[in-house]
């Protein structure tokens, strides 16, 4: 699948390999994600409580709520606990700001990509995701 780059990561990594963490329900980074360890605080239909966003390819179909989301993302970036890539349905300036500031501060920052929610639905939770520039592919481990 082809995605768009909302914001390039820093430093730019040729190929990102990560496990998909798919959030089908709307989430707010502030309130639903712990800024100290990247745990998902809000229960979701796939029982995601306690799962960590760190290192994942985080698929978010809908972002919700607070204007403090950028701070939570920046803190995760600062603590090296950010997702490896964040995939959104549409550009979100509040979340992107966390990444924009992360880059300015010189901290490793994940790219923020755009993939429409309808296209996101084909990616199963836990799939192995490979992101190379604007191309997203995934495979499901049968074992």
């Amino acid at each position: 699948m082809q995605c768009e780059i909302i914001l390039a990561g820093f430093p730019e990594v040729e190929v990102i390999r990560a496990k998909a963490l798919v959030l089908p329900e709307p989430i707010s980074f502030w309130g639903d994600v712990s800024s100290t360890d990247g745990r998902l605080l809000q229960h979701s239909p796939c029982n995601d409580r306690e799962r960590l966003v760190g290192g994942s390819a985080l698929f978010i179909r809908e972002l919700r709520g607070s204007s403090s989301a950028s701070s939570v993302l920046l803190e995760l970036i600062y603590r090296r606990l950010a997702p490896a890539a964040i995939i959104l349905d549409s550009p979100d300036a509040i979340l992107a700001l966390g990444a924009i500031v992360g880059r300015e501060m010189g901290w490793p920052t994940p790219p923020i990509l755009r993939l429409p929610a309808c296209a996101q639905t084909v990616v199963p939770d836990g799939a192995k995701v490979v992101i190379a520039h604007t191309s997203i592919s995934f495979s499901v481990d049968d074992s």
Partner: protein
Amino acid sequence: MSRTQLRRKAKRRRGGRFNPKQYNDLVISYGSISVRFVRELMFDLPITPVAARYRSFRSTMSLDLDREEQHLLSGAEGDGTALAMRIVACAARVLQAENLTPIHAAHIDGCLYHGDSGVLFAERLVALGARVRVPTTLNVGAIDLLHGDRDRLEPAAKDMARRLMNAYVAMGAKPTWTCAPYQAGHRPRRGEDVAWGESNAVAFCNSVLGARTNRYGDFLDICAAITGRAPRTGLHLPENRVATVLVDATGIPQPYWNQDIAYPVLGTWLGHVVGERVAAIEGIGHPSEDQLKALGAAAASSGAVGLFHVIGTTPEAPSLEVAFGNRPPSEVIRLDPSTLENVRLTLSSVRLEAGDAVNAVAVGSPHLSKAELLLLDRLLGNRQCAIPLYACTGRHVVNEFSAEDLRSFVDRGVILVADTCIVVTPILPRSSGVVVTNSGKFAHYTPSNTGYDVVFANFRDCIESAVTGSLQLTPSFPHAV
């Protein structure tokens, strides 16, 4: 440069003498900075200036910067202003704005401590000499500076939270420390472009004041204040302020709207169902400013609501025709009593019966207005609270009361919290339990942010629950009307 590239380069340089353990120790020895800087330190190279990094940024659209904006970007007004301008410009590109709009005022949400990263950023702005260019107020911090012992922050975190608050004041922002700046004298005029953070304040600013702001997140808010510019997009553009969804509440009996719980319930529903679209609500009469505040706060907690209209009440909706720009709504939603009753039930995280024991009561999200605190005073009367009653408000309200009035709150067991509130900083006792609240926003955030369960009740029931230490729950609509 990626870690693998760095490793390859180090290996090449060391040749046969490359030792993986030594290499790893060396990388770690540079601390938690980005790998590209490690490369520069390790090989004694000059550190590339930050601006060079922007070469990597791709943009599908060009952003037009006028002469003044380019001047700010150039660093002629200081490195801090240039840094802020780079961030505003980058955000504008993410938002695909074609240009920037001058703003007249700002309200900053970035002063709430979420971790050390935000402090380091604010202090970098201060160190680079950044100052706000427009009148700027500050949202809540993590510390009640009027009553220093309200929070349970660890000393290190408290120190950082204080450093953060100091940094924003050092940039010239007013230390208002409230999420209801619109009740602390910061009231932009209708049609004025401003840059506000804090979701409830944004909803109020757009909907009730008719000033124009997007939902500015942390960092962009202060950068807009420093540069006096914001991306011209979203709700800054008149065409995006026109309602598209009609919420028809005429099917709800009018007495419903006399209950204070009606507004957080309607707001929660609005956030869930309408989200970012602009709704015009018809048939709820003429809500007061405090009721609109509760509506907007709940809507902005459950969904991305930045603007709503109430026909006949809010400034951009004198009539249906004006609110919809003489176009038909793209969707009409008729509200019925059972929908609202179901939403009310979702605002409690635990089902309790009247008379069940509860542990605390919290009101004041958004911060209580003077009228709301006076109502609390009157409803409580001479009675003593059996459990803590947290009343969160701004110093603009606290300062309106005499020392004697304030002592009388304390004597009755009311814990006044200023400058902050119970969901943004640890204030509730460490044990868990149940909090009763009348706030849609507290109801939304209390379980995840405090670990307490929450029961949603009207203002009077909140006060009665505080006095008795057990849940007082007046049957509400539809049973009450």
